[in-house]
C-alpha cells in the first residue's frame, strides 16, 4: 500500500477565472492500477465534481478515447499504469478544454 499524490488540472470556464491544479491523495494497493482507476477513485471518494472521459469507455485500449496527459505525455488513461509516487494529470489540449480533463477534439 502506498499513497499516490495526484496533481490534477481543473478548469470550469463558467465558474473559474482561470485554471488551477488540485491535489489528491489516493491509496494504491496494487501494481496493476491504471490512471482511469485512479480518476474513478477520486470521483467516487474525494471529489465528484472532477471531469474526465468515462461515459463511453471500453477500458481495454480499443476505443482510444480516454486520452490524458500524464506527466506531460499523452496516453490512454485505461492503459497507463501508475509508476512512482506523484503524477501530474492534464488535458491533452488546454486550448480546447471543456472542463478539467475533457477537451472537444474533432
Amino acid at each position, binding site marked *: 500500500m502506498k499513497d499516490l499524490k495526484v496533481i490534477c488540472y481543473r478548469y470550469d470556464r463558467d465558474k473559474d477565472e482561470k485554471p488551477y491544479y488540485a491535489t489528491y491523495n489516493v491509496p494504491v494497493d496494487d*501494481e496493476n492500477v491504471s490512471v482511469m482507476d485512479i480518476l474513478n477513485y477520486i470521483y467516487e471518494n474525494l471529489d465528484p465534481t472532477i471531469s474526465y472521459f468515462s461515459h463511453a469507455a471500453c477500458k481495454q485500449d480499443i476505443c482510444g478515447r480516454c486520452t490524458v496527459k500524464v506527466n506531460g505525455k499523452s496516453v490512454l488513461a485505461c492503459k497507463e499504469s501508475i509508476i512512482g509516487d506523484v503524477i501530474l494529470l492534464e488535458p491533452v489540449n488546454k486550448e480546447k478544454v471543456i472542463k478539467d480533463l475533457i477537451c472537444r477534439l474533432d
Partner: protein
Amino acid sequence: MINNYLYYDVIIMGSGGAGLRAAISSAEKGCKTVIVTKGKINRSGATLLAGANISADIACDGKSLWEMGFNTDKDDSKEKWFKDIITEGFYLNNDELVSRYVEDAPKRVKELIDWGMKVNGLEGDRAISVEGTEILDTLYRNAKSLNVGFIEDNLVSDIVTEGNKFVGIISIDILSGDISFIGAKSLVIASGGMHFVFPFHSGSTDLTGDGQAAALRAGVEMIDMEMVTFCPLIIKHPLKYRGSILPYILQSFGYGEILNKYGKNFLDDVFEKDVLYYAWHSEWNKLLLSYAFSKEILNGNGTPDGGLYYVMSSSPKEIYKEMYSNWPGFKKGVNPEIMSILENGNALVIAPGAHYFEGGIKINDKMETNVQGIFAAGECTGGLFGANRVSSALTEMLVEGAIAGENAAIYAKDINNIKPDKDLIDKYVEPITKPFNVNKGTNVLEMRKYLHDITYANLWVIRDGEKLQTCLSKLDEIKNGIDEIYIKNKSLKYNKEWIEYIELRNVYYCAKAIAKSALLRTESRGVHFRSDYPITNNEEWLKHIIIVDANFNYRFENIRRGISEAEIKKLSYIDFIRYLVNKLT
C-alpha cells in the same frame, strides 16, 4: 430549457453494428437519417469489445458459407440451423425472428465481405471470425458515404410520444450539457445491453439500458427480461483489467484451468462426466460454467473478492508462441499485459459477470414495436434467442439492423414530422434537470453503490423467490431515492454525477423489469436458474413474460413453436440441458 430543435426523417439511437447497419438501410431508401450515439460513432457500444477484439464470430449456416468459398460443411442447411437455435434457446425463441435470422444471415455476411471486411478465418462450423473493430469500420465507411448524420457524445434521456405515436427524442450533449429535442418520423433503438444493471460485467461503460428504459417509459413492451447470460470468466482482479473476457476466450480455445481458493479443481464435483464435457467443450459453456462457478463462490470457496483463480501455470513457452501466431489479437491493446501475468505463472481472479441480454424490447419480424414509428434492433431487443443465446449476437445486430432501418424508412415515407408543443417537452425535461435544484438528499454515487449491492446479492446467476422479492422491494426504495437525488456538481459541462443520475434512472427500470420477470418465472430454463424451482417445466412455462408498461404490469404470451417441439413435460434443470444437447444436429 431546450437548447436546440432538430428534425430528421429517421433517428437511429446507438452506433454499434445494429445502429450502423440500420442507418445504411434507412439512408439507402432516401431518408434523412441521423445516428445519435452516446460515444464515438465507430468506437463505442458492445460491438467494439466482441470476442475481446480477438475473435468475434458472425454466424451463418455451413452451406451458405461453403457457397461463399469457406471450408464448411455443405450438407448443413438453414433448416438444421433453425432447429438448433430453437433447441439452444430451450424452446423459448420467437420462431418468426429465428426465421429472419437464418434467412438473412448469408446476405449480411456476404455484403460485409464485399464491402472489404477482413476475415480472420472460421470459428467452428457455422461462423466466420473477425475483429469487432473491423465490422464497425466497414459499416461506418458505408454509412458515411450515404451521408448519414452523426451526433456523438449524446445521451438519449427520453423518447417523446403523443398518443401511441413516436414524435422525437430528448438528447443531452454530455460535453456541453445542452439539451436537444430531435424530432423525426421514426426511430430505431439500437442501444445495446443493460450491463450497468450489474456491478460486474463485460460491457463498455455506455451500456446502461438507455434504449430499453426510455422505450418502456414510452409504452413499448419488453419481453423475456429475466434472461441474462453471464460470462463465466470475466476478469475481476487486477482492477485495471476488470471486465475483460480474455480468460473466457482462452478457456473456449481450450487453454488454462480454474481453481478455487484452495487451489483445487472443483468442477468434477459439480457435474457428471458428460455434462462436464459440455461445460468445457460446447458452446453451452457460458451457462454451465456460470452456474458451477457461482455455486462454488456461494459455498465460500471463492477468493476474498468473490472470484476464482484462472491459471495457465503448467503451460510451457511453446504453447504461448503457437497461440500468439494463431491469434494476433492476444498481442494487441492491454491483452499482452494480461498474458504476461499468466506467462509468469500468476493467476487472474475471474468470476461470472453480466454479458448478454436475451430479453429486451419486444419486436415482430419487421422489427416494429407496439408503438407506431418505434423500431428496434440488436441486443436491446428480445425474443430471438429465447432462454439462451448460443449463436451469434453479431449476426443478430446485422440482420435486425438491416430490417429495422428499412422498415423505419418505409414508415417515414408516408407521414410528416409532428412538432410537439412546449408543454409536452417540458414534461420530459423537468425530471432530468431536477437534481440541479435539489440541495440535499442521497448522493447519486451512494445510490449507484446501493443498487449494485442489491442486484449482485439478489439478481445474480443463482436466483430464488425470496431474493427476488427483496430485490423488488429495495428497488422501490431506490426509485424514491432517485426522485430526490442529490448531486454536488451543479455545472452543466461534462457533469459525471448528472449523467450517472440519468443512467441510474434507466438502470432502475431495467433492473425492475428483470427482477419482476425473474420472480414470475417459477422454473429454471436456460440462463434463468431458480434454486427454489430447479426444474424446467414445459407444461406451464412455454410462454413469454411481457412487461407492458412503466408500472411493470405484465401479461403472458404462449409460444407456438416451442409447444409443438417439446416432447418432455418436466425435467430437472441439468437433465433437460443433457436432453437438449443430444438433440442438436
